[in-house]
């Protein structure tokens, strides 16, 4: 899951020590991005699936909806992540070609 957050590449201008420092900061950032993704998932599935406040327990319908919302959100993220990286590549090439 986390791996998608990581656009690992080598930065030729950096020394090994700089690479390590960068690596360490990127890991913190990845964790933060992951937390953001997780929180957005919760908010989004809560917003979409929960609307009955006649009880404090999740109903079966709500529970199933959250489950499907989770699976689908992962699939959405995967797909958008892949397309995003393709497009980003294209954009960078276009900018360098100018």
């Amino acid at each position, binding site marked *: 899951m*986390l791996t998608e957050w990581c656009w690992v590449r080598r930065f030729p201008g950096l020394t090994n020590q700089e690479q390590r420092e960068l690596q360490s900061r990127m890991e913190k950032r990845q964790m933060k991005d992951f*937390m953001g993704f997780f929180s957005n998932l919760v*908010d989004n599935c809560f*917003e979409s699936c929960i609307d009955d*406040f006649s*009880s*404090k327990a999740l109903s079966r319908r*709500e529970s199933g909806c*959250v489950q499907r919302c*989770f699976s689908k959100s992962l699939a959405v993220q995967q797909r958008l992540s892949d397309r995003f990286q393709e497009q980003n590549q294209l954009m960078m090439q276009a900018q360098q070609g100018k």
Partner: protein
Amino acid sequence: MSFLGMGRPQPTSEQKIAAVETEMEMVAEMLNRLTKACRSKCIPTDYREGELNKGEGVCLDRCTAKYFDVHMKIMENMQKENQKQAGGGGAAPGGAGFGFGS
């Protein structure tokens, strides 16, 4: 402190403080998100009264409980997913780190 070489090295002060700080931030952010979610579910936007009426109060209570349930449910799902991707064994990086509480 660990001069007898028992287990992993002690975290530095900065690391300990940063860990507590991160936990606080996560808790504060979760309260923010819950507030936004439950206000929009339970509080009508016409503000005809300045007090919380009974129905709204009960709605907020249940909304909070359900928000935590959804949070837990998705956290469990995420952990399962991580384990699946890590091949069913070993420590998934970050897979254990997103609970609350120290």
